């Protein structure tokens, strides 16, 4: 405020907005304190760790080694493989989850799919504990008495039982199926919410204009869902990079590192090899990738916000 100070009846900082700002700061502080304590500090510690030669046997913030850990990683074929696996995993998971979830969402948005039981069904895999999910699929994939091989051979689809988790090419995809199965429901719910925000009048208009179902989808639904889909893509990418439990329970990164991804590699290097510095470096690289995705998420939201403000 650029008011002549002499003219002000009482000291500044007591106005409604000033008070709101002050109260706001007070309200944010506890959350910031908690996050600083349990996140920011540990994160700073881990960034520092990635520049150290430190191991689990005696953790004394070892010797400063600069970027050595990162150099080691970029020369390591296992890291390259884990990076490739992570990218493959993320791309396929996001693509399949979003496409299938969109299809499910369209089905559930159809008058025939409005039965609330369908939505309840969706909540089951979503609420299922990841560990339970891993246990479940380990059981399904078992090569000698898993239900998948039994059904496959009984119906003649599979000539022989398949070792789902034993073939490098298959194993990663088998894990993907388990992951996708669990991830689809939430994205379906998000897209369903997005679909329900599409004004009905647009569908009526497009029908009057003589559009078929496909054209309606292509020219009405899809453009209206654009932001929602983008959000789903970004969120799912972040979640995909974070997945851990399936690898931990089902394959532990094998066979021949076929299912080793960055997150699991970070775990293995830190806790199994005991090399905290190198493990931190892996995790920090993963963090960097996720950070870029987070920026994308914020970008996706920004136009929507601006539009909202414009209306208000």
């Amino acid at each position, binding site marked *: 405020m650029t008011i002549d100070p002499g003219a002000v009846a009482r000291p500044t900082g007591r106005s409604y907005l000033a*008070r709101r*700002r002050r*109260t*706001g*700061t007070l*309200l*944010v502080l506890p*959350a*910031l304190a908690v*996050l600083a304590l*349990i*996140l*920011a*500090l*540990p*994160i700073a510690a*881990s960034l520092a760790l990635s520049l150290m030669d430190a191991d689990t046997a005696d*953790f004394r913030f070892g010797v400063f080694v600069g970027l050595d850990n990162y150099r080691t990683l970029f020369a390591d074929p296992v890291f390259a493989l884990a990076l490739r696996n992570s990218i493959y995993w993320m791309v396929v998971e996001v693509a399949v989850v979003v496409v299938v979830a969109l*299809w*499910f969402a369209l*089905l*559930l948005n*159809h008058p025939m*799919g409005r039965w609330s039981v*369908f939505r*309840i069904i*969706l*909540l*089951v*895999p*979503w*609420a*299922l*504990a990841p560990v*339970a999910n891993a246990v*479940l*699929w380990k*059981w*399904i994939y078992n090569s000698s*008495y898993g*239900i998948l091989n*039994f059904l496959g051979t009984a119906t003649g689809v599979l000539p022989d039982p398949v070792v789902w988790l034993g073939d490098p090419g298959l194993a990663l995809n088998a894990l993907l199926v388990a992951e996708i199965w669990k991830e*689809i429901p939430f994205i379906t719910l*998000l897209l*369903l919410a*997005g679909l329900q*925000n599409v004004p009905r009048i647009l569908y009526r208009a497009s029908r009057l204009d003589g559009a078929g179902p496909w054209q309606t989808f292509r020219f009405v639904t899809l453009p209206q869902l654009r*932001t929602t889909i983008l959000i789903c893509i970004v*969120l799912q990418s972040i979640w995909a990079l*974070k997945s*851990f*439990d399936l690898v931990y*329970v089902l394959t532990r990164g094998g066979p021949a590192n076929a299912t080793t991804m960055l997150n699991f590699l*970070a775990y293995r290097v830190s806790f199994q090899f005991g090399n905290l510095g190198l493990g931190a470096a892996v*995790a920090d690289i993963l*963090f960097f990738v996720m950070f870029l995705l*987070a920026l994308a998420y*914020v970008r996706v939201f920004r136009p929507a*916000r601006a539009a*909202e403000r414009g209306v208000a």
Partner: protein
Amino acid sequence: MSRRGRARTRRIGIGLGLALFVAWTLAPIVWALISSFLPLRALTSTPPDLAPGNFTLENYLGVLSADRDLIGGLRNSAIVASFTAVLALLIGSSAAYALARLRVPGGGKILMLILVTQMFPAMVIIIPLFIVLSRTGLTDSQVGLMIVYLSFVLPIVIWVLKGFFEAVPRELERAAAVDGASTMQVFRLVVLPISLPPLFATGVFAFIEAWNEFFFAVILTQSSAKTAPVVVAEFSGQYVSLYGQMVAAAAIASIPVIVLAIVFRRYILEGFVEGAVKG
């Protein structure tokens, strides 16, 4: 094809699609449930021996009576998850409101920071966290877990609730301010009461996340504070895997949150999910 015929084909197509949807989503669960009622011998025979006589509660009874304290795990999960949810709502809702509406200086940066912290793989913060917790004697305690769980629940809660508070009509806050309410009173007496559904939805979400968390729980608990997923994982040992018991334990551990999700689905669907889409 006539228009009527086309419409019918379409209905059949959608019906088939829905059937496929139900089958895909439920089949693994159904098979798990069946497995949980079969003894290991019936499960490992080819084909799986589904004779009605084989169905038994022995896995469930075994799970409940085993040395692995599943009931203790469930109790710990319930306590940790509910307190985490309540704490996250307490701390998170006020922060979310401030960031949504109170024009906190540097609010944009704070939000980015919160988002960024959420991106960090749990893997790396575990060691520093463990050091802090063990120095303060909080390993293997429900309190320790709650604090750690706040780290990943709080950012989500803040981010989602912020979206909701932004949708609260400004006039309501202004009316309350004109009526003489302080900013805290506006928040407490007007904004919070009308945001109950999203608060509930976010709370349920936080509860489920905390209930299901595995990685931190494995590392940070020893015996007295073990949560349900940790106990479930314990059914697979080095030398024996008791599949039936494992699945039964997984079922028991999952049922509370699934029931919770179903009971509060209205809040989750209308509240949380839409909030995430609207940001």
